[in-house]
């Protein structure tokens, strides 16, 4: 049984999605999704523990050996990501019961869970696969189901947001597969390990450079690197709360992972950073994201959109770690994948609770909510402190590693810019804190009370995680630095 875990990790959500599509009642679909989502972290955790003890796991799909067959490969980085995605799914499902029931029509609820499980399947598949084209297939599986999920949002602007995301996301995925095609035509293989070993002879040819460029741009679209982030604010703002929370915590992270896999494992750090000016470009774009997106966030009236722009800024931190390309910086970027997922997941879940109670996320609507919903808003403040980077929370850990990484490169000016952008987040988080705790109660807020336990517990769990993993960093930083080490060493 345990030998089949890699396949089960992907097949179970797929089957679950099929079953959900056949369900006619929303609560039955939810139950199926719950079972699947709770089984996922168990599988991921077992695989990750084995990887940490014994080294990477290699699984040949259908028994066909790589490089002709499709290989599923779990190592420190992919295991980390699998655990992250499945944990987020497991935490969100109990919450989803009430949230989805209140935001989506009854007849569409089974379809929502179908899309959710398909998205989960796609994301887990991208993380686990060792085949480039297989990654494209899973990428599109997760993307198409995402477009569906977003379009189920209440506001009609969700449809426009889904359409815009569809256009941009498809362009991104198509660029990715174009790059893979160029790689395939030059090396004759689609398996990551195999391509890496064959790349030596053809390294300096133009198609390989073009392939790297195509893949980087394609994945940058998917991970919403500035200025290719345009789809993100609307998609997050108008999607159902559960979809936003899930996507914010997972979709962009998996795209980062795929890009890391290509840049470091397939092409190798020397080739990637010497042949294209990746370091400079990434650092410039990351800084633009950190400052630009934070500034825009400060002026938003819709709190969901504000947090979406905050996500763009936080993704800038991750890509900054990639641009630094040294052990400490890369560790910081990878650990921020996990940390940001915790922070943003928590924040969007809490916002979903607010929507459930008062029906709006305009900032005026939140006025005075601290008096009626103290636990929810208190948790919001703690997660907000993590975004700011207060020591004792996960946000600080990522920032520490990124800054020390920048120091080690001798770019002390980058350190000041890094901490400077955190100051901007003080402003927009502070704005929410002031409105929630200092203003008199708004008319929407009068209906507010604390939410049901099913919604509160998952959100509080994620908030607790942002504090716990900010103090006991052995798991997150330990795995992240192992992953960074493996990436920097390459697969050759």
């Amino acid at each position, binding site marked *: 049984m345990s030998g089949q875990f890699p396949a089960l990790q992907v097949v179970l959500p797929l089957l679950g999605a099929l079953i959900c599509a056949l369900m006619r009642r929303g609560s039955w679909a939810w139950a199926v999704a719950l079972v699947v989502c709770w089984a996922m972290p168990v599988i991921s955790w077992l695989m990750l523990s084995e990887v940490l003890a014994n080294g990477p796991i290699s699984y040949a799909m259908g028994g066909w050996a790589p490089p002709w067959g499709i290989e599923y490969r779990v190592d420190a980085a992919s295991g980390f990501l699998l655990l992250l995605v499945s944990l987020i799914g497991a935490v969100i499902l109990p919450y989803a019961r009430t949230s989805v029931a209140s935001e989506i029509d009854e007849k569409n609820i089974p379809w929502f869970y179908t899309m959710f499980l398909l998205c989960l399947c796609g994301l887990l598949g991208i993380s686990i696969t060792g085949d480039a084209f297989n990654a494209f297939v899973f990428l599109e599986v997760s993307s198409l189901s995402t477009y569906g999920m977003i379009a189920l949002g209440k506001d009609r602007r969700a449809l426009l947001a889904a359409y815009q995301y569809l256009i941009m996301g498809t362009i991104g995925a198509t660029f990715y597969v174009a790059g893979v095609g160029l790689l395939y035509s030059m090396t004759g293989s689609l398996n990551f390990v195999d391509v890496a070993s064959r790349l030596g002879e053809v390294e300096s040819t133009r198609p390989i450079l073009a392939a790297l460029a195509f893949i980087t741009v394609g994945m940058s679209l998917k991970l919403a690197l500035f200025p290719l982030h345009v789809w993100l604010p609307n998609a997050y703002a108008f999607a159902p709360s559960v979809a936003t929370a899930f996507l914010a915590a997972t979709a962009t992270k998996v795209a980062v992972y795929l890009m890391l896999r290509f840049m470091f494992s397939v092409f190798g750090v020397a080739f990637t950073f010497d042949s294209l000016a990746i370091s400079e470009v990434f650092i410039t774009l990351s800084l633009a994201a950190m400052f630009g997106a934070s500034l825009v966030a400060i002026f938003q009236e819709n709190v969901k959109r504000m947090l979406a722009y905050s996500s763009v800024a936080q993704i800038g931190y991750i890509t900054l770690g990639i641009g630094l390309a040294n052990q400490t910086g890369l560790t910081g970027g990878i650990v921020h994948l996990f940390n940001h997922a915790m922070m943003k997941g928590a924040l969007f879940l809490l916002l979903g609770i607010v929507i459930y109670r008062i029906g709006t996320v305009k900032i005026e609507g939140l006025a005075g909510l601290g008096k009626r919903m103290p636990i929810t808003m208190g948790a919001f403040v703690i997660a907000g402190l993590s975004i700011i980077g207060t*020591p004792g929370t996960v946000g600080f850990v990522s920032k520490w590693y990124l800054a020390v990484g920048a120091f080690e490169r001798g770019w002390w000016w980058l350190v000041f810019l890094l901490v400077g952008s955190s100051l901007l987040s003080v402003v927009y988080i502070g704005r929410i804190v002031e409105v929630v705790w200092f203003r008199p109660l708004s008319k929407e807020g009068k209906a507010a009370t604390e939410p049901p336990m099913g919604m509160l517990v998952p959100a509080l769990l994620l908030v607790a995680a942002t504090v716990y993993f900010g103090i006991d960093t052995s798991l997150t930083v330990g795995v992240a630095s192992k992953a960074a080490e493996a990436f920097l060493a390459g697969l050759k």
Partner: protein
Amino acid sequence: MSAEQLVILALCLPTIGIVLIGLAGRWPDIREAVTLVTAVVLFGVVLSLLSDVLGGARPEVSLLEIVPQIELKFAVEPLGMLFATIASGLWIVNSIYSIGYMRGNDEPRQTPFYMCFAAAIASTLGIAFSANLFTLFIFYEVLTLSTYPLVTHKGTEEAKRGGRVYLLLLLGTSMLLLLPAIMWTWVTAGTLTFTPGGILAGKVDGLTLGLLLALFVFGIGKAALMPFHRWLPAAMVAPTPVSALLHAVAVVKAGVFSVMKIVVYIFGIDHLAATGQSQWLVYVAGATVLIGSLVALTKDNLKARLAYSTVSQLAYVVLGAALANSMGMIGGSMHIAMHAVGKITLFFCAGAIYTAAHKTEVSELDGLGRVMPFTFFAFMVGALSIIGLPPFGGAWSKWYLALGALDANQLAIVVLLMVSSLLNIAYLLPIPFRGFFAKAPKGTPTEGIKEAPLPCLIAIGLTALGCLLLFIFPDPVFDLVKLIDTPTGQ
């Protein structure tokens, strides 16, 4: 109980207090009792640690590794012990005062108030007992965050604005300047642990040392060194017990304590003296002393006047550190204690005047001393201590600072100290004198005004007495301060 267990207990007590106060919220008397009992027990624990430290012990407690090779670690040494004693002792007095003030003014939301107080004290002890820069930084930030609700307690537009300045300035300086300084130290020195003699000798020299010092000193916004002092007057929107806490017990003291600790245990006094890289700081601190006093002269609002007085007085401690010799360090460290007791007296009196007579401006206080003699007499005692005249504690710290300036051949500083004392007289003494001897201004009768509530008066009496006792018995402070930077067993 071993010294290590005492350290843990000292940190846990106020933290547990937060929870207990919250639980007792519905029964105000029990809630106040919880605060007082916690404060008294804490003081007892700190005192027993004090005797250990005076005997040469340096207990260390290592909790966990947050980032590889950097631990959350506590170590008690003389300077931290001094700060902890002052903070925990004054918490008792401040709590007594708060009871009188908050009830006398019928302030709302008293339970969150006392809870945040306990949180602030917990973070203060964390700062006092920190063994490395990392631990110090964590509790420094927690202190800012736990005092923000206290500063904005009134909930008015003004309170919000004051809170904004407070938060942005303190978080801004700590994130933009202090954190990079800590990281820089980590990358160059390879360690963040406070070590007698400093950790930078041989690793950082010359202009870079001065630059690093600047990052640290300006990054510690709580020390209110100009031009990052604006948060202090802005925080005056808070209720007076909070102002007392900010100015005397915790926040500013945490700031100057951190400056002193970093100068002594990261830079090393001898290394600084040898490279001469702290001279610019002598000038900046001196300028702050002077400008702070001058601005205080122009302020009619009593709390604003006291705020700028604090800015000026804090610069004394920084000055002591900047002089980079042992007399200066002794004078600066003693001033942490003397100023704390003196300033808290002044703030208590200001609050008492507000509670009893609802007056906030200095010009309104003429003749008030005749109906509130106890308060105004205590004010005079506190003022004399701040000015630095015997028989009050402030005289000692000023004396040692002057000695330190002479040791460093900085006669200008000695002159500055004298000028500043004159300015202190000019902006502080008129208040009690006019209170006692001037006629009440027209249209503001002073009949019917009585003294402040009894708990306030008790607190005022205790701190005023403290000013006197610190002059007569300076030895505990002095002995402790002499031990700073010396290896144990000396």
